[in-house]
């Protein structure tokens, strides 16, 4: 089990290998479909982004409402492949890590390799369990998107598995090779 901190350094990323189990601590941001669309659009138009992407990690997540006395509601990962079209632009702008569930497109994987970033998986459908690793949650942008707004999260030992490493090795490419053809 490797422990790493955000912002991710070049050597952190270098040392992560596909399949590694990782505990992540530090500041990360939630962003999913509509937020990605807006971020990518802002990058294209050369506008200032509401968050600094350099070295940061984005969590594909739209939590439930926060119950009284809690830091955050249920907050598991959403399907990453829906973000694939926007991923190369965000990586080019400095994004270094992504957390989600499921496989990525070939283009997204190539961009992860090109920009030396990393794609993490976390426990899918376990939003109640994952809320325990979040110590603080603050809205930072796109509040009109409701659950798709960007939140700044402080996470502590957030459990991850490396899905795609900076060399472009993909856990699902390995896995799909073992999927039996019927």
């Amino acid at each position: 089990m490797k422990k790493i901190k955000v912002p991710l350094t070049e050597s952190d990323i270098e040392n992560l290998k596909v399949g590694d189990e990782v505990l992540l601590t530090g500041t990360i941001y939630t962003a999913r479909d509509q937020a990605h669309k807006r971020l990518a659009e802002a990058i294209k138009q050369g506008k200032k982004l509401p968050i600094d992407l350099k070295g940061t990690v984005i969590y594909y997540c739209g939590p439930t409402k926060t119950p009284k006395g809690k830091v955050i509601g249920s907050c598991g990962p959403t399907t990453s492949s829906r973000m694939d079209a926007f991923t190369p632009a965000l990586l080019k702008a400095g994004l270094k890590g992504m957390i989600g569930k499921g496989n990525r497109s070939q283009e997204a994987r190539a961009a992860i390799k090109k920009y030396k970033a990393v794609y993490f998986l976390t426990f899918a459908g376990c939003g109640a369990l994952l809320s325990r690793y979040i110590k603080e949650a603050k809205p930072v942008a796109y509040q009109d998107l409701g659950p798709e707004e960007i939140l700044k999260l402080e996470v502590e030992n957030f459990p991850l598995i490396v899905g795609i490493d900076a060399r472009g090795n993909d856990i699902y490419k390995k896995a799909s090779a073992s999927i039996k053809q019927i």
Partner: protein
Amino acid sequence: MKVISANKIRNIVSQLCIQANLVLRQDVLRGLKSATLKETNKKAKKILEAIIQNAGIAKREKLAICQDTGMPVVFLEVGQDVKIIGDLKKAVHQGVELGYKKGYLRNSVIGDPLSRRSPKYSPAVIHTDIVKGNKLKITVLPKGFGCENKTQLKMFNPTAQLTEIKKFIIDAAKNAGPGACPPFVVGVGIGGTADYAMFLAKKALLRKFGVRSSKFGVLEKEILKEINRLNIGPMGLGGKTTALAVNIETYPTHIAGLPAAVNISCHALRSATAVL
């Protein structure tokens, strides 16, 4: 004749929304536990244990099992001898609104599918059936979209072989892959019209774990076995637990066609039912 007020329906729907989203169905939990015991892949076992732990935390801490609290799908079986005082549909939508708010669930429903602004809690998708008797049965199925997006429909030729339909179902599970949160429950609808096959596939998800179709039980078991040989496993990282159940529902169809639909549920198969 039984009289039920719309207010009562609203309150029951509200409770069912909270129960379905916070408390994993006992039969689903049992299914997960027995799969964990049988799983031999270490990683898969660990993920299944996390899923079970998650259900426990959700129940104890009153948190949603999954942040995707779904598009609420409400099945109404209205006895023909029931008289409802008030607006039934409105009561259902208001019940959803109330329950989702009270349960701190997610407002994942957008009013306009194209402009995609201002997510809300409702409306629900309502399926109404008129049945004999003087009871009203309400079931709430919050359907997450990670798995809903993997729905498949195929209009087979009426001369299609059973093996082709089996392959279609297995391929649907294969294509759903890691993103749809395996282990799945695979709902299958065969027959009727295109829309009705789809409806049956969704309704099939409501069947209690361990109950097999009286006519197609053997086929269900065979397909389940084949899907579990795919080695997709929990989170798609391998293992023999790719699906927990395959439930097939059928209906008569036209001589010229053979519709088949697959509606997949993620491992967080959530539903709650009340009978008034």
